[in-house]
């Protein structure tokens, strides 16, 4: 029976976020909080593996109390248990401090039920780094496998997994000992609409909520802002490029002007012969 932990995060939907142009900060009211889209694929893959091999899927997140909603979303996808670690002392964490806190949570989860596989999304749409997954793997001292777009086999008895890692021009088939950590691509699966019974279960579900004090052997100095080597020193709006010339006239006239612009670069087009 496998125990798979998926790491998930609640994020502001950066697609529709509005920025305050004066302060260059997010106007959080304009951005609904959603489950990081990449993490939905991580949970879905965990659920599929459980269906194949049997076992338990737990999800874990570090975030503010409203992140319970993202956990419920994962229960809808099919996760069995959810853990939220939430505490002021976690606030302001960069990827190094985030991976530290999550590792402490996974270690605690593992004490109750040993973890075989940790699955992360490729990246978050707010942090946007993809660094947390490999960071957790190093701290747990298990092999990190990033860019995974297929899980071929997980063999708990013999203690190995075989996955495909996406490369620029194909993929590689990699075998790793268990436990290991996978960061999965969006292409690994499609997340279907949640089955109705899962929705019902999610509506009732109460996740486990832990503070720093519920975790063991925590070095407070490695948490949150204090434990973060990187700091944001300055934010600014990306410079607006200068507007160019609008070509006036009817379509034919517009095209004629455009053509003369293009033909100034005619050396580029000569290589086209024979294509």
């Amino acid at each position, binding site marked *: 029976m496998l125990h798979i932990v998926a790491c998930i995060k609640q994020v502001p939907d*950066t697609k529709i*976020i509005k*920025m305050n142009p004066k302060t*260059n900060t997010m106007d959080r009211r304009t951005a609904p909080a959603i489950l990081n889209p990449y993490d939905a694929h991580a949970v879905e893959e965990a659920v599929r593996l459980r269906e194949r091999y049997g076992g338990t899927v737990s999800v874990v997140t570090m975030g503010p109390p409203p992140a319970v909603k993202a956990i419920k979303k994962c229960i809808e996808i099919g996760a069995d248990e959810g853990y939220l670690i939430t505490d002021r002392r976690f606030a302001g964490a*960069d990827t*190094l401090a985030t*991976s530290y806190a999550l590792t402490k949570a996974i270690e605690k989860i593992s004490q109750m039920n040993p973890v075989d596989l940790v699955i992360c999304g490729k990246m978050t749409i*707010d942090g*946007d*780094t*993809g*660094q947390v997954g*490999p*960071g957790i793997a190093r701290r747990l001292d298990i*092999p*990190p*496998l*990033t*860019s995974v777009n297929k899980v071929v086999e997980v063999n708990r008895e013999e203690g190995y997994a*075989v996955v495909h890692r996406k490369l*620029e*021009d*194909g*993929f*590689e*088939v990699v*075998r790793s*000992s268990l436990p*290991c950590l996978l960061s999965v691509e969006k292409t690994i699966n499609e997340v279907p609409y949640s089955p109705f019974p899962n929705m019902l279960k999610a509506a009732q579900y109460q996740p486990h909520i832990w503070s720093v004090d519920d975790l063991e052997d925590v070095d407070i100095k490695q948490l949150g802002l204090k434990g973060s*080597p*990187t*700091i*944001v*020193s*300055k*934010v*600014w*709006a*990306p410079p607006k*490029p*200068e*507007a*160019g*010339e*609008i*070509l006036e006239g009817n*379509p*034919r006239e*517009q*095209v*004629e002007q*455009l053509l003369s*612009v*293009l*033909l100034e670069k*005619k050396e*580029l*087009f000569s*290589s*086209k012969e024979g294509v």
Partner: protein
Amino acid sequence: MDFQDYQGVWVFIEEKDGEIPSVSLELLGAGRKLADKRGVELAGILIGEDIKHLAQTVFEYGADTVYVYDQPIFKHYRTESFMKALLECSNKYKPEIILFGATSTGKDLASAVATDLPTGLTADTTELDVEEDTGLLLASRPAFGGNIMATILCKKYRPQMATVRAKVMKALPPQPGRTGKVIEEKVSLKEEDIRTKVLEIVKETTKKVRIDEADIIVAGGKGLGSAEGFQLVHQLANALGGTVGASRDVVEAGWIEHGHQVGQTGVTVTPKIYIAIGISGAIQHIVGMKNSGLIIAINKDSEAPIFDSCHYGIVGDAFEIVPVLIEQFTQALSKEEVSHVGEV
């Protein structure tokens, strides 16, 4: 931690099928500037099997020193083996800055190394600078889905690390014959110590598009309405001898594969000509194409933000404009060719 002990700028050099990919050469260009400003050495770090000869290329693109780990155990990239080499090298020679390409390998390796050192790591940097006197790295990157730029610092730890996006830095023109110091190192690592094994590498046989290498890109957006409408982009690209690009919404709609996507979560491109058709010009798209030589936009909405980021704009319906353009261009080009032949 005594910062005095940490000196020099390093670039992790990737290797692919016996060659150094352009992103590593670009980083040498960027690293050279930082090193010169600080008055320190620029070093490349090469890890692989039978890769020693590549050191020459690394020198020609600007490095003073190359650290080489050439052992069979490095035949395939694996986080655990490469990480060991880089950690040992960094702890022994103590650079103040290490740069990696923001490629899948570069990000994987940098994340693992930064955790073990430990130190700060800035992801997907698009601008780099260094404080001359303190050596503080100023690594800037788009944040919150490209809505803002942020400068990230790592004040209390050394080395400072960053992954850097391909195609935003410039490689120096190579200086043939330029040489430097090769430092060969070895790790004592047995195959059994590594918990992962690459069983097989499968190359995709269909030729992959490399929009990042194209001189001419014709990119289409959601404004083309449908997969059929998007064919217009292919037609113009064919006529111009260009490559097809796309906005994310087009990729998400399934009109074309992700390899064609330009922008923050796609590819950064710098063609000589970029033609955007039916693309609104969201910031996440603009960051991926703004350094193109000549940007032309065709959009029926005169208020579309793309017009703030182009050299020439046409406000109009793509389905009216583009067919005329294809026709006139083809005519003009055949005339050109005739006159060319005449000159010879």
